[in-house]
Protein backbone atom coordinates (compact mmCIF):
# COMPACT_ATOMS: atom_id res chain seq x y z
CA UNK A 1 0.00 0.00 0.00
CA UNK A 2 1.34 3.45 -0.88
CA UNK A 3 0.88 6.70 1.08
CA UNK A 4 -1.88 8.04 -1.18
CA UNK A 5 -3.98 4.90 -0.74
CA UNK A 6 -3.25 4.77 2.97
CA UNK A 7 -4.41 8.34 3.48
CA UNK A 8 -7.59 7.67 1.55
CA UNK A 9 -8.36 4.76 3.85
CA UNK A 10 -7.20 6.36 7.10
CA UNK A 11 -10.53 7.91 8.11
CA UNK A 12 -12.42 4.66 7.65
CA UNK A 13 -9.58 2.84 9.37
CA UNK A 14 -10.04 5.00 12.46
CA UNK A 15 -13.83 4.57 12.35
CA UNK A 16 -13.31 0.81 12.36
CA UNK A 17 -15.09 0.56 8.99
CA UNK A 18 -12.37 -1.16 6.97
CA UNK A 19 -12.51 -4.87 6.20
CA UNK A 20 -9.91 -6.71 8.25
CA UNK A 21 -7.62 -7.41 5.30
CA UNK A 22 -7.45 -3.74 4.28
CA UNK A 23 -7.10 -2.63 7.89
CA UNK A 24 -4.11 -4.94 8.24
CA UNK A 25 -2.53 -3.35 5.15
CA UNK A 26 -3.02 0.13 6.59
CA UNK A 27 -1.56 -0.99 9.91
CA UNK A 28 1.40 -2.46 8.12
CA UNK A 29 1.97 0.72 6.12
CA UNK A 30 1.76 2.90 9.21
CA UNK A 31 4.53 0.96 10.87
CA UNK A 32 7.13 2.37 8.52
CA UNK A 33 5.66 5.68 7.31
CA UNK A 34 6.08 8.79 9.43
CA UNK A 35 4.08 10.94 7.02
CA UNK A 36 1.00 8.73 7.30
CA UNK A 37 1.46 8.37 11.03
CA UNK A 38 1.43 12.17 11.27
CA UNK A 39 -1.78 12.23 9.22
CA UNK A 40 -3.31 9.59 11.49
CA UNK A 41 -2.34 11.59 14.57
CA UNK A 42 -3.91 14.67 13.08
CA UNK A 43 -7.18 12.85 12.43
CA UNK A 44 -7.13 11.45 15.95
CA UNK A 45 -6.61 14.92 17.39
CA UNK A 46 -9.57 16.15 15.38
CA UNK A 47 -11.71 13.25 16.56
CA UNK A 48 -10.74 13.91 20.16
CA UNK A 49 -11.64 17.58 19.78
CA UNK A 50 -15.01 16.77 18.24
CA UNK A 51 -15.78 14.20 20.92
CA UNK A 52 -14.95 16.70 23.66
CA UNK A 53 -17.18 19.21 21.93
CA UNK A 54 -19.98 16.66 21.82
CA UNK A 55 -19.59 15.65 25.46
CA UNK A 56 -19.72 19.27 26.52
CA UNK A 57 -22.62 20.34 24.37
CA UNK A 58 -24.84 17.24 24.56
CA UNK A 59 -27.95 18.05 26.55
CA UNK A 60 -30.36 16.08 28.66
CA UNK A 61 -34.08 16.45 28.05
CA UNK A 62 -35.80 18.94 30.33
CA UNK A 63 -37.51 17.51 33.39
CA UNK A 64 -40.97 18.16 31.94
CA UNK A 65 -40.19 16.46 28.62
CA UNK A 66 -41.27 13.00 29.70
CA UNK A 67 -44.51 14.35 31.16
CA UNK A 68 -45.30 16.03 27.84
CA UNK A 69 -44.59 12.79 25.97
CA UNK A 70 -46.54 10.74 28.48
CA UNK A 71 -49.61 12.96 28.13
CA UNK A 72 -49.52 12.52 24.37
CA UNK A 73 -48.98 8.78 24.34
CA UNK A 74 -51.60 8.23 27.02
CA UNK A 75 -54.17 9.41 24.51
CA UNK A 76 -52.92 7.00 21.83
CA UNK A 77 -55.52 4.49 20.68
CA UNK A 78 -53.08 2.54 18.47
CA UNK A 79 -52.90 -0.64 20.54
CA UNK A 80 -56.60 -1.33 19.95
CA UNK A 81 -56.56 -0.69 16.20
CA UNK A 82 -58.01 -4.08 15.34
CA UNK A 83 -60.90 -3.94 17.73
CA UNK A 84 -63.09 -1.95 15.38
CA UNK A 85 -66.63 -3.05 14.59
CA UNK A 86 -66.77 -5.64 11.84
CA UNK A 87 -69.30 -5.66 9.05
CA UNK A 88 -71.44 -8.80 8.54
CA UNK A 89 -69.29 -9.91 5.62
CA UNK A 90 -66.16 -9.58 7.70
CA UNK A 91 -67.82 -11.44 10.55
CA UNK A 92 -68.90 -14.33 8.34
CA UNK A 93 -65.91 -14.52 6.06
CA UNK A 94 -63.37 -12.75 8.24
CA UNK A 95 -61.13 -15.75 8.44
CA UNK A 96 -60.77 -15.70 4.67
CA UNK A 97 -59.67 -12.07 4.87
CA UNK A 98 -57.22 -12.86 7.66
CA UNK A 99 -53.49 -12.83 6.89
CA UNK A 100 -52.08 -15.65 4.76
CA UNK A 101 -50.40 -17.29 7.69
CA UNK A 102 -53.68 -17.55 9.54
CA UNK A 103 -55.31 -18.99 6.42
CA UNK A 104 -52.60 -21.62 6.18
CA UNK A 105 -53.19 -22.46 9.82
CA UNK A 106 -56.93 -22.74 9.22
CA UNK A 107 -56.31 -25.10 6.31
CA UNK A 108 -53.90 -27.15 8.38
CA UNK A 109 -56.56 -27.49 11.06
CA UNK A 110 -59.10 -28.70 8.49
CA UNK A 111 -56.62 -31.32 7.29
CA UNK A 112 -55.76 -32.55 10.74
CA UNK A 113 -59.44 -32.81 11.59
CA UNK A 114 -59.71 -35.58 8.98
CA UNK A 115 -56.62 -37.38 10.16
CA UNK A 116 -57.44 -37.05 13.84
CA UNK A 117 -61.01 -38.14 13.17
CA UNK A 118 -59.64 -41.36 11.68
CA UNK A 119 -57.41 -41.91 14.68
CA UNK A 120 -60.21 -41.41 17.14
CA UNK A 121 -62.46 -43.73 15.12
CA UNK A 122 -59.71 -46.35 15.17
CA UNK A 123 -59.25 -45.87 18.90
CA UNK A 124 -62.93 -46.33 19.58
CA UNK A 125 -63.04 -49.28 17.29
CA UNK A 126 -60.00 -50.72 19.01
CA UNK A 127 -61.72 -50.30 22.35
CA UNK A 128 -64.92 -51.95 21.15
CA UNK A 129 -63.04 -54.89 19.70
CA UNK A 130 -61.06 -55.23 22.87
CA UNK A 131 -64.30 -55.37 24.84
CA UNK A 132 -65.72 -57.91 22.39
CA UNK A 133 -62.56 -59.94 22.57
CA UNK A 134 -62.89 -60.05 26.33
CA UNK A 135 -66.32 -61.65 25.86
CA UNK A 136 -65.49 -63.75 22.77
CA UNK A 137 -61.73 -64.14 22.25
CA UNK A 138 -60.62 -64.06 18.61
CA UNK A 139 -57.74 -66.30 17.52
CA UNK A 140 -56.15 -63.81 15.05
CA UNK A 141 -55.33 -60.16 14.99
CA UNK A 142 -57.38 -58.20 12.49
CA UNK A 143 -55.40 -57.06 9.44
CA UNK A 144 -58.00 -54.38 8.66
CA UNK A 145 -55.63 -51.54 9.32
CA UNK A 146 -53.21 -52.52 6.63
CA UNK A 147 -55.98 -53.20 4.12
CA UNK A 148 -58.07 -50.15 4.81
CA UNK A 149 -55.05 -47.93 4.64
CA UNK A 150 -52.65 -49.33 2.06
CA UNK A 151 -50.29 -46.40 2.51
CA UNK A 152 -49.63 -47.34 6.07
CA UNK A 153 -47.57 -50.36 5.09
CA UNK A 154 -45.33 -48.10 3.03
CA UNK A 155 -44.55 -45.87 5.94
CA UNK A 156 -43.59 -46.68 9.47
CA UNK A 157 -44.69 -49.58 11.57
CA UNK A 158 -44.13 -47.72 14.80
CA UNK A 159 -43.33 -50.19 17.54
CA UNK A 160 -46.02 -49.94 20.17
CA UNK A 161 -43.57 -49.43 23.00
CA UNK A 162 -42.13 -46.36 21.23
CA UNK A 163 -45.49 -44.79 20.70
CA UNK A 164 -44.79 -41.49 22.40
CA UNK A 165 -41.06 -41.39 22.02
CA UNK A 166 -41.08 -41.17 18.23
CA UNK A 167 -40.15 -37.68 17.22
CA UNK A 168 -42.71 -36.28 14.81
CA UNK A 169 -41.44 -35.33 11.42
CA UNK A 170 -38.19 -37.28 11.72
CA UNK A 171 -38.79 -41.02 11.78
CA UNK A 172 -39.97 -41.64 8.22
CA UNK A 173 -36.73 -42.06 6.29
CA UNK A 174 -34.91 -43.80 9.10
CA UNK A 175 -37.80 -46.13 9.77
CA UNK A 176 -38.20 -46.88 6.08
CA UNK A 177 -34.73 -48.32 6.01
CA UNK A 178 -35.56 -50.53 8.99
CA UNK A 179 -38.90 -51.61 7.58
CA UNK A 180 -39.51 -55.32 7.17
CA UNK A 181 -41.05 -55.66 3.69
CA UNK A 182 -44.72 -56.54 4.04
CA UNK A 183 -45.73 -57.33 7.56
CA UNK A 184 -49.34 -56.30 8.19
CA UNK A 185 -49.79 -53.90 11.09
CA UNK A 186 -51.44 -54.97 14.30
CA UNK A 187 -54.22 -52.82 15.75
CA UNK A 188 -51.92 -51.39 18.36
CA UNK A 189 -49.23 -50.58 15.81
CA UNK A 190 -51.75 -48.95 13.53
CA UNK A 191 -53.11 -46.96 16.42
CA UNK A 192 -49.64 -45.90 17.44
CA UNK A 193 -48.87 -44.88 13.90
CA UNK A 194 -52.06 -42.86 13.64
CA UNK A 195 -51.30 -41.17 16.94
CA UNK A 196 -47.83 -40.17 15.84
CA UNK A 197 -49.21 -38.88 12.58
CA UNK A 198 -51.99 -36.92 14.31
CA UNK A 199 -49.51 -35.51 16.79
CA UNK A 200 -47.22 -34.46 13.96
CA UNK A 201 -50.07 -32.72 12.19
CA UNK A 202 -51.17 -30.97 15.34
CA UNK A 203 -47.63 -29.79 15.87
CA UNK A 204 -47.46 -28.39 12.33
CA UNK A 205 -50.69 -26.51 12.96
CA UNK A 206 -49.35 -25.27 16.29
CA UNK A 207 -46.22 -23.94 14.55
CA UNK A 208 -48.26 -22.07 11.96
CA UNK A 209 -50.60 -20.70 14.57
CA UNK A 210 -47.68 -19.70 16.72
CA UNK A 211 -46.38 -17.53 13.91
CA UNK A 212 -49.86 -16.10 13.30
CA UNK A 213 -50.18 -15.26 17.02
CA UNK A 214 -46.69 -13.70 17.04
CA UNK A 215 -47.72 -11.45 14.15
CA UNK A 216 -50.79 -10.28 16.03
CA UNK A 217 -49.11 -9.97 19.37
CA UNK A 218 -48.87 -6.18 19.34
CA UNK A 219 -52.61 -5.92 18.88
CA UNK A 220 -53.44 -8.12 21.84
CA UNK A 221 -53.99 -6.51 25.23
CA UNK A 222 -51.09 -7.39 27.57
CA UNK A 223 -53.52 -8.75 30.16
CA UNK A 224 -55.26 -10.98 27.60
CA UNK A 225 -51.90 -12.17 26.33
CA UNK A 226 -50.81 -13.15 29.82
CA UNK A 227 -54.00 -15.20 30.22
CA UNK A 228 -53.40 -16.83 26.86
CA UNK A 229 -49.85 -17.74 27.85
CA UNK A 230 -50.90 -19.24 31.18
CA UNK A 231 -53.67 -21.30 29.50
CA UNK A 232 -51.15 -22.49 26.97
CA UNK A 233 -48.78 -23.52 29.74
CA UNK A 234 -51.57 -25.56 31.39
CA UNK A 235 -52.35 -27.33 28.13
CA UNK A 236 -48.66 -27.99 27.48
CA UNK A 237 -48.41 -29.57 30.90
CA UNK A 238 -51.40 -31.85 30.06
CA UNK A 239 -49.67 -32.79 26.81
CA UNK A 240 -46.47 -33.62 28.66
CA UNK A 241 -48.35 -35.73 31.21
CA UNK A 242 -50.22 -37.66 28.48
CA UNK A 243 -46.95 -38.31 26.67
CA UNK A 244 -45.38 -39.54 29.88
CA UNK A 245 -48.33 -41.88 30.46
CA UNK A 246 -48.02 -43.17 26.90
CA UNK A 247 -44.34 -43.83 27.39
CA UNK A 248 -45.09 -45.84 30.51
CA UNK A 249 -48.18 -47.61 29.15
CA UNK A 250 -47.81 -47.63 25.35
CA UNK A 251 -51.10 -49.49 24.83
CA UNK A 252 -53.15 -47.11 26.94
CA UNK A 253 -55.82 -45.87 24.55
CA UNK A 254 -57.13 -43.34 27.09
CA UNK A 255 -53.72 -41.66 27.32
CA UNK A 256 -53.70 -41.36 23.52
CA UNK A 257 -57.16 -39.81 23.61
CA UNK A 258 -56.08 -37.37 26.31
CA UNK A 259 -53.05 -36.40 24.27
CA UNK A 260 -55.11 -35.67 21.18
CA UNK A 261 -57.75 -33.83 23.21
CA UNK A 262 -55.04 -31.63 24.72
CA UNK A 263 -53.61 -30.89 21.29
CA UNK A 264 -57.08 -30.11 19.98
CA UNK A 265 -57.62 -27.67 22.84
CA UNK A 266 -54.26 -26.05 22.19
CA UNK A 267 -55.02 -25.57 18.51
CA UNK A 268 -58.48 -24.24 19.35
CA UNK A 269 -57.09 -21.73 21.83
CA UNK A 270 -54.35 -20.55 19.47
CA UNK A 271 -56.87 -20.32 16.66
CA UNK A 272 -59.08 -18.07 18.78
CA UNK A 273 -56.18 -15.73 19.46
CA UNK A 274 -54.67 -15.83 15.98
CA UNK A 275 -57.90 -15.29 14.07
CA UNK A 276 -60.13 -13.24 16.32
Amino acid at each position, binding site marked *: MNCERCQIEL*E*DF*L*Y*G*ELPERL*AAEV*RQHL*VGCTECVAERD*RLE*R*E*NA*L*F*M*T*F*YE*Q*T*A*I*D*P*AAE*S*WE*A*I*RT*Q*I*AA*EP*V*RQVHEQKLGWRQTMFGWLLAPTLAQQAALAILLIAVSVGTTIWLMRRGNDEKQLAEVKPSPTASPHGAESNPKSTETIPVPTKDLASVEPGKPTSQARRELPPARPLSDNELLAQQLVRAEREYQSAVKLLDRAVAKR*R*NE*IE*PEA*FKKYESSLALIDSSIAQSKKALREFPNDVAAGQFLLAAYARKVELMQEVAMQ
Partner: protein
Amino acid sequence: MKSLASKLRDSWLENLNNESERREQREKMAFSEIAPGVVERAKCGDEEAFHLIFNRYGRPVLSFINHHLQNRGLAEELAQETFVRAYRNLSGLKDDLRLSTWLFGIARNVVRESVRQSRKDERKVGLDEPESLKLESGFVLPEGSMLDRELTETIHKALAELDDDKRIVFSLKIFHEKSYEEISSITGHSIGKLKTDLHRARAEMRKRLEPYLAV
Protein backbone atom coordinates in the same frame (compact mmCIF):
# COMPACT_ATOMS: atom_id res chain seq x y z
CA MET B 1 15.44 -9.33 23.05
CA LYS B 2 13.05 -6.88 21.47
CA SER B 3 14.26 -3.45 20.42
CA LEU B 4 12.64 -0.35 21.85
CA ALA B 5 11.19 0.44 18.41
CA SER B 6 9.56 -2.96 18.09
CA LYS B 7 8.19 -2.68 21.63
CA LEU B 8 6.69 0.68 20.77
CA ARG B 9 5.30 -0.75 17.55
CA ASP B 10 3.75 -3.69 19.39
CA SER B 11 2.23 -1.43 21.98
CA TRP B 12 0.88 0.84 19.25
CA LEU B 13 -0.62 -2.11 17.38
CA GLU B 14 -2.13 -3.32 20.60
CA ASN B 15 -3.63 0.10 21.16
CA LEU B 16 -5.16 0.02 17.72
CA ASN B 17 -6.62 -3.40 18.36
CA ASN B 18 -7.91 -2.15 21.66
CA GLU B 19 -9.49 0.78 19.86
CA SER B 20 -11.45 -1.54 17.62
CA GLU B 21 -12.31 -3.73 20.61
CA ARG B 22 -13.38 -0.68 22.57
CA ARG B 23 -15.57 0.35 19.69
CA GLU B 24 -17.12 -3.11 19.53
CA GLN B 25 -17.63 -3.00 23.27
CA ARG B 26 -19.27 0.41 23.05
CA GLU B 27 -21.67 -0.90 20.41
CA LYS B 28 -22.54 -3.90 22.53
CA MET B 29 -23.04 -1.66 25.55
CA ALA B 30 -25.30 0.64 23.60
CA PHE B 31 -27.53 -2.36 22.85
CA SER B 32 -27.34 -3.86 26.28
CA GLU B 33 -28.21 -0.62 28.04
CA ILE B 34 -31.79 -1.46 27.29
CA ALA B 35 -32.59 -4.64 29.16
CA PRO B 36 -33.86 -7.54 27.05
CA GLY B 37 -37.62 -7.48 26.73
CA VAL B 38 -38.04 -3.74 27.33
CA VAL B 39 -38.72 -2.98 23.67
CA GLU B 40 -41.10 -5.93 23.49
CA ARG B 41 -42.96 -4.63 26.56
CA ALA B 42 -43.09 -1.13 25.11
CA LYS B 43 -44.53 -2.59 21.90
CA CYS B 44 -47.36 -4.03 23.98
CA GLY B 45 -48.15 -0.55 25.28
CA ASP B 46 -46.18 -0.72 28.53
CA GLU B 47 -45.61 2.95 29.38
CA GLU B 48 -42.97 2.20 31.99
CA ALA B 49 -40.90 0.31 29.42
CA PHE B 50 -41.20 3.21 27.00
CA HIS B 51 -40.02 5.55 29.77
CA LEU B 52 -36.87 3.40 30.07
CA ILE B 53 -36.30 3.84 26.33
CA PHE B 54 -36.75 7.59 26.68
CA ASN B 55 -34.30 7.71 29.61
CA ARG B 56 -31.72 5.83 27.59
CA TYR B 57 -32.05 7.62 24.26
CA GLY B 58 -33.48 11.04 25.24
CA ARG B 59 -30.04 12.60 25.53
CA PRO B 60 -28.50 11.41 22.22
CA VAL B 61 -31.69 12.11 20.28
CA LEU B 62 -32.12 15.60 21.76
CA SER B 63 -28.43 16.38 21.26
CA PHE B 64 -28.58 15.17 17.66
CA ILE B 65 -31.52 17.48 16.98
CA ASN B 66 -29.93 20.37 18.85
CA HIS B 67 -26.64 20.05 17.00
CA HIS B 68 -28.59 20.20 13.80
CA LEU B 69 -30.87 23.12 14.63
CA GLN B 70 -28.89 24.87 17.36
CA ASN B 71 -32.07 25.92 19.08
CA ARG B 72 -32.66 24.25 22.41
CA GLY B 73 -36.37 25.09 22.76
CA LEU B 74 -37.21 23.83 19.29
CA ALA B 75 -34.95 20.79 19.78
CA GLU B 76 -36.86 19.86 22.96
CA GLU B 77 -40.15 20.12 21.09
CA LEU B 78 -38.91 18.02 18.18
CA ALA B 79 -37.36 15.42 20.48
CA GLN B 80 -40.76 15.03 22.13
CA GLU B 81 -42.38 14.67 18.74
CA THR B 82 -39.75 12.04 17.85
CA PHE B 83 -40.59 9.92 20.90
CA VAL B 84 -44.35 10.27 20.42
CA ARG B 85 -43.98 9.09 16.80
CA ALA B 86 -41.70 6.29 17.96
CA TYR B 87 -44.33 5.14 20.44
CA ARG B 88 -47.03 5.20 17.77
CA ASN B 89 -44.95 3.19 15.34
CA LEU B 90 -43.08 0.90 17.68
CA SER B 91 -44.78 -2.15 16.24
CA GLY B 92 -43.06 -1.32 12.92
CA LEU B 93 -39.62 -1.79 14.48
CA LYS B 94 -38.44 -5.10 13.06
CA ASP B 95 -35.18 -5.56 14.91
CA ASP B 96 -35.10 -4.44 18.54
CA LEU B 97 -31.32 -4.15 18.39
CA ARG B 98 -31.66 -1.36 15.89
CA LEU B 99 -33.81 0.76 18.18
CA SER B 100 -31.32 3.64 18.40
CA THR B 101 -30.82 3.75 14.62
CA TRP B 102 -34.57 3.69 14.17
CA LEU B 103 -35.02 6.56 16.66
CA PHE B 104 -32.38 8.65 14.88
CA GLY B 105 -34.22 7.97 11.62
CA ILE B 106 -37.44 9.34 13.09
CA ALA B 107 -35.58 12.32 14.59
CA ARG B 108 -34.03 13.07 11.23
CA ASN B 109 -37.47 13.08 9.54
CA VAL B 110 -38.95 15.26 12.25
CA VAL B 111 -36.08 17.76 11.88
CA ARG B 112 -36.37 17.75 8.10
CA GLU B 113 -40.12 18.44 8.24
CA SER B 114 -39.57 21.22 10.74
CA VAL B 115 -36.83 22.86 8.66
CA ARG B 116 -38.96 22.59 5.54
CA GLN B 117 -41.89 24.17 7.35
CA SER B 118 -39.82 27.01 8.76
CA ARG B 119 -38.32 27.70 5.33
CA LYS B 120 -41.84 27.97 3.93
CA ASP B 121 -42.75 30.37 6.74
CA GLU B 122 -39.61 32.42 6.11
CA ARG B 123 -40.45 32.74 2.44
CA LYS B 124 -43.85 34.06 3.43
CA VAL B 125 -42.25 36.92 5.35
CA GLY B 126 -39.56 37.48 2.74
CA LEU B 127 -36.66 35.98 4.61
CA ASP B 128 -34.34 33.49 3.02
CA GLU B 129 -31.91 32.74 5.76
CA PRO B 130 -31.12 29.09 6.51
CA GLU B 131 -32.63 27.91 9.76
CA SER B 132 -29.34 26.65 11.03
CA LEU B 133 -27.61 30.01 10.57
CA LYS B 134 -30.45 31.98 12.08
CA LEU B 135 -30.42 29.89 15.22
CA GLU B 136 -26.72 29.61 15.74
CA SER B 137 -26.60 31.03 19.25
CA GLY B 138 -28.67 28.30 20.84
CA PHE B 139 -25.90 26.66 22.83
CA VAL B 140 -25.12 27.21 26.44
CA LEU B 141 -21.81 25.86 27.63
CA PRO B 142 -21.87 24.17 31.00
CA GLU B 143 -19.83 25.63 33.83
CA GLY B 144 -16.24 24.42 34.01
CA SER B 145 -16.25 23.70 30.30
CA MET B 146 -12.93 22.31 29.17
CA LEU B 147 -13.09 23.65 25.64
CA ASP B 148 -12.46 27.28 25.11
CA ARG B 149 -15.69 29.21 24.55
CA GLU B 150 -14.32 30.69 21.37
CA LEU B 151 -13.38 27.27 20.05
CA THR B 152 -16.80 25.90 20.94
CA GLU B 153 -18.46 28.77 19.13
CA THR B 154 -16.21 28.17 16.14
CA ILE B 155 -17.20 24.49 16.02
CA HIS B 156 -20.85 25.48 16.27
CA LYS B 157 -20.50 27.90 13.40
CA ALA B 158 -18.57 25.41 11.32
CA LEU B 159 -21.27 22.80 11.94
CA ALA B 160 -24.03 25.26 11.10
CA GLU B 161 -22.40 26.15 7.82
CA LEU B 162 -22.26 22.57 6.60
CA ASP B 163 -25.16 21.68 4.36
CA ASP B 164 -27.85 19.41 5.84
CA ASP B 165 -26.56 16.13 4.38
CA LYS B 166 -22.99 16.77 5.48
CA ARG B 167 -24.01 17.94 8.94
CA ILE B 168 -26.16 14.86 9.52
CA VAL B 169 -23.55 12.36 8.42
CA PHE B 170 -20.87 14.21 10.40
CA SER B 171 -22.99 14.25 13.54
CA LEU B 172 -24.05 10.59 13.28
CA LYS B 173 -20.56 9.37 12.51
CA ILE B 174 -18.37 11.52 14.72
CA PHE B 175 -20.65 12.31 17.66
CA HIS B 176 -22.87 9.24 17.74
CA GLU B 177 -20.38 6.74 16.27
CA LYS B 178 -22.88 5.12 13.94
CA SER B 179 -21.67 2.81 11.19
CA TYR B 180 -22.10 3.74 7.52
CA GLU B 181 -24.69 1.01 7.24
CA GLU B 182 -26.69 2.48 10.13
CA ILE B 183 -26.38 6.03 8.77
CA SER B 184 -27.53 4.75 5.42
CA SER B 185 -30.67 3.30 6.96
CA ILE B 186 -31.28 6.54 8.90
CA THR B 187 -30.82 8.88 5.93
CA GLY B 188 -31.65 6.66 2.99
CA HIS B 189 -28.42 7.71 1.27
CA SER B 190 -25.98 5.31 -0.32
CA ILE B 191 -22.79 4.47 1.54
CA GLY B 192 -20.77 6.01 -1.30
CA LYS B 193 -22.54 9.34 -0.89
CA LEU B 194 -22.18 9.18 2.88
CA LYS B 195 -18.42 8.63 2.61
CA THR B 196 -18.05 11.53 0.20
CA ASP B 197 -20.20 13.83 2.33
CA LEU B 198 -18.35 12.90 5.48
CA HIS B 199 -14.96 13.42 3.90
CA ARG B 200 -16.00 16.82 2.60
CA ALA B 201 -17.60 17.75 5.91
CA ARG B 202 -14.39 16.93 7.71
CA ALA B 203 -12.39 18.96 5.21
CA GLU B 204 -14.67 21.98 5.69
CA MET B 205 -14.57 21.67 9.45
CA ARG B 206 -10.78 21.32 9.37
CA LYS B 207 -10.44 24.45 7.30
CA ARG B 208 -12.38 26.45 9.86
CA LEU B 209 -10.67 24.93 12.84
CA GLU B 210 -7.15 25.00 11.44
CA PRO B 211 -5.72 27.46 13.97
CA TYR B 212 -6.94 25.30 16.84
CA LEU B 213 -5.72 22.05 15.37
CA ALA B 214 -2.10 23.04 14.81
CA VAL B 215 0.28 21.09 17.06
